[in-house]
């Protein structure tokens, strides 16, 4: 369909007599939604331009108010401060070693709100890849916030921001108790800005919910995540709202309510699709697949896993793709489709080992062994179990893991290995990072 240009439609709305063939244009408008929408928009514009109130506001807007001048001055000072801080810090932020050696919080030239903001922003970009460095950076930001004059209008906000970033870094480092302490301290600093207090608190609640989720305290996380999501929705912060919905849904899975989780994951998936955000979409799909697998809804789980794997491929995330393959194979085994599940687990354990994910490869091998024993196919199980290696970050965990593997090897030696023993050792090793103190005990 050929459309009329904006100039012709504009002239028509101004005065139909200005258009050569107004009748033809009107016929077109009845059939063309696109041109009708332009005409409607022009009529709205014209109608609004006839309102006296609008013109009063135009006149008021033309005069630069005192508040605007004040806001511009504040903006200029913040921009200057941030720019100066970025310039001073660039050299130190390039190297963790140099940053640690500089002890910047001890030097008064760094004591500005701009330095705190720049350090917090820098820390935020490092959490995932360099959590130790981001922890150091956020800690320095917090120390500098303490040096700001007591009457500084942004002192509490800066300290709160720094504590929040520090808490995120601690979470990445697995230091959950300290992360919760930092967040509690940050929350006491949120006050006195009615426009933003709810938002600032929601940022803290969302982080606290994530800490609770990661430390397997889902029941404490759920109400915080729900409240934070509500506030983010009020502030039209869709990214954070969706992230918090995801946390809540993950907590439902952890607390044994996968049917409640599915609803949340579906929201995440819908948001990811609507925004063309494949990263959000693939996380939602993968988590939804896990929830459906927990619900023994193999059809849906398989569909979601398949789409997640395709997307991981597209995003070039081989590790995540392998994890999804592993999840799908586990779901098949649980659903009783042993042949397909065993084949998937065999592929997954090889890929995990090739990616250098030793512990995950070990867990997948245990699952594979358990499935083979359950299927009456013991060939290769003994050799595979003997070759299992696990590594843990602390001496205590290493000792506990060695005890579990020794028990397994003893069963292998005696020829008493059963699927139950394999599952027991696998579940113990799987839970060890979150329960490092728990000593290994043979199955009852």
């Amino acid at each position, binding site marked *: 369909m050929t459309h009329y240009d*904006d*100039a012709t439609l*504009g*002239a028509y709305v*101004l005065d139909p007599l*200005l258009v050569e063939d107004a009748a033809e244009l009107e016929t077109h408008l009845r059939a063309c939604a696109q041109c009708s929408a332009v005409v409607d*928009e*022009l009529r*709205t*514009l*014209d109608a*609004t*331009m*006839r*309102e*006296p109130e*609008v*013109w009063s*506001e*135009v006149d008021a*807007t*033309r005069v630069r*108010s005192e*508040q*605007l001048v*004040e*806001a*511009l001055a*504040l*903006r*200029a000072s*913040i*921009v200057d401060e941030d720019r100066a801080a970025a310039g001073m810090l660039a050299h130190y932020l390039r190297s963790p070693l140099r940053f640690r050696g500089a002890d910047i919080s001890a030097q008064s030239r760094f004591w500005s709100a701009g330095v705190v*903001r720049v350090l*917090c*922003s820098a820390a935020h970009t490092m959490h995932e890849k360099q959590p130790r460095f981001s922890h150091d950076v956020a800690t320095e930001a917090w120390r500098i916030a303490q040096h700001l004059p007591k009457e500084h*209008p*942004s002192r509490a*906000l800066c300290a709160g*921001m720094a504590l929040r970033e520090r808490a995120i870094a601690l979470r990445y480092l697995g230091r959950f108790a300290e992360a919760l302490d930092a967040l509690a301290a940050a929350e006491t600093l949120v006050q006195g*800005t*009615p*426009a*933003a*207090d*709810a*938002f*600032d608190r929601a*940022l803290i609640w969302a982080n606290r919910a994530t800490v609770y989720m990661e430390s397997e305290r889902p029941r404490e996380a759920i109400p915080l995540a729900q409240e934070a999501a509500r506030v983010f*929705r*009020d*502030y*039209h*912060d*869709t*990214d*954070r709202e969706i992230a918090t919905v995801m946390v809540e849904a993950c907590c439902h899975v952890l607390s044994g309510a996968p049917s409640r989780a599915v609803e949340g994951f579906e929201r995440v998936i819908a948001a990811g699709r609507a925004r063309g955000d494949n990263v959000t979409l693939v996380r939602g799909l993968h988590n939804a697949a896990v929830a459906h697998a927990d619900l023994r809804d193999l059809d849906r789980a398989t569909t979601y896993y398949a789409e997640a794997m395709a997307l991981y491929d597209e995003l070039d995330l081989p590790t995540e793709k392998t994890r999804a393959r592993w999840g799908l194979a586990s779901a098949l085994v649980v659903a009783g489709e042993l042949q397909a599940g065993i084949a998937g687990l065999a592929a997954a354990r090889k890929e995990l080992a090739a990616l250098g994910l030793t512990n995950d490869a070990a867990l997948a091998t245990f699952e594979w062994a358990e499935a083979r024993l359950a299927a009456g196919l013991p060939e290769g199980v003994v050799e595979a179990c003997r070759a299992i290696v696990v590594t843990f970050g602390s001496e205590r965990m290493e000792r506990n893991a060695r005890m579990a593997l020794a028990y397994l090897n003893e069963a292998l030696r005696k020829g008493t290995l059963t699927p139950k023993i394999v599952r027991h050792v696998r579940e113990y090793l799987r839970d060890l990072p979150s329960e490092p103190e728990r000593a290994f005990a043979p199955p009852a």
Partner: protein
Amino acid sequence: METRTPRSTRLQRVITALGVKPLHVVKEAARIARELGLRGISRQHFGRVKSGRAKATEEKIFIIVAALRELTGISFRAHNLFELEPEAVAVPFHSNASVPVSSGLHSSRSWRLFVPDEPGPSATEAAFEALYTQYGVLLRSIAMRRFRVPPDDAEALVHDTFVAYLERHTVIHDVKGWLIGAVSNACKHYWRDRQHEAPLLPEHDETADPAAPTTVERWMQRSAVVAVLAQLGVKCRETLRRYYLNEEPKEVIAEGLSTSPGYVLKLLIACRRRAHELFRRLAGPKE
């Protein structure tokens, strides 16, 4: 900066379409050049530039654009009138706030301010001023109409909201959405502090008002029109005001402008078109 030499230049097409006399452009350009301490442009040189037979320097482009803005009231940019080198015009106007920005001719000392190469402080300041101006209207409307906050207090709450935004600018993703949420919270807090003065209305409840998005959409649209009209050049704005608000016929407007009704009609069409373009940019979907 150089112009190409096509048969019909953009400048020529605009001047013809608006019925502007070249002599008037030259005179206005001379006046602006005097005020700014620059050299004007001769009638002959302007004729050659208009027909594409001569190149215009940056300074000449600047005063021609300024003169045409003054004469027509339309906020032209250099690339609307001249075919500039692609790299000079293709640079998108940076705005942290995703708000289209008027170029503020009156404070410009060089035409390059129309198309800055990088987000300089003045450009970002202009972006913030546009945000404050455009969203200030909307936020005041929310405070006054939805939450019935008295005008002076609403003004203060809006200002506090912008200050809160500035202090947290590093953690805010959607500035406009955040501002709306923030002013709503500030208003709720305002009435909580004054419960003895006026009870909170049901729509001030913590839960989101399902009707609110439609209302907010309407206010957004209205505040976009206000922002558009405030951004237009004085001649365009006043012509639109006389036509739409005062309902003056074209003949009367022409008399006031010492011109013909035909020119007023062209001016109205051009100004309305410009207003429509800006309105679409402001009221359209977020980037």
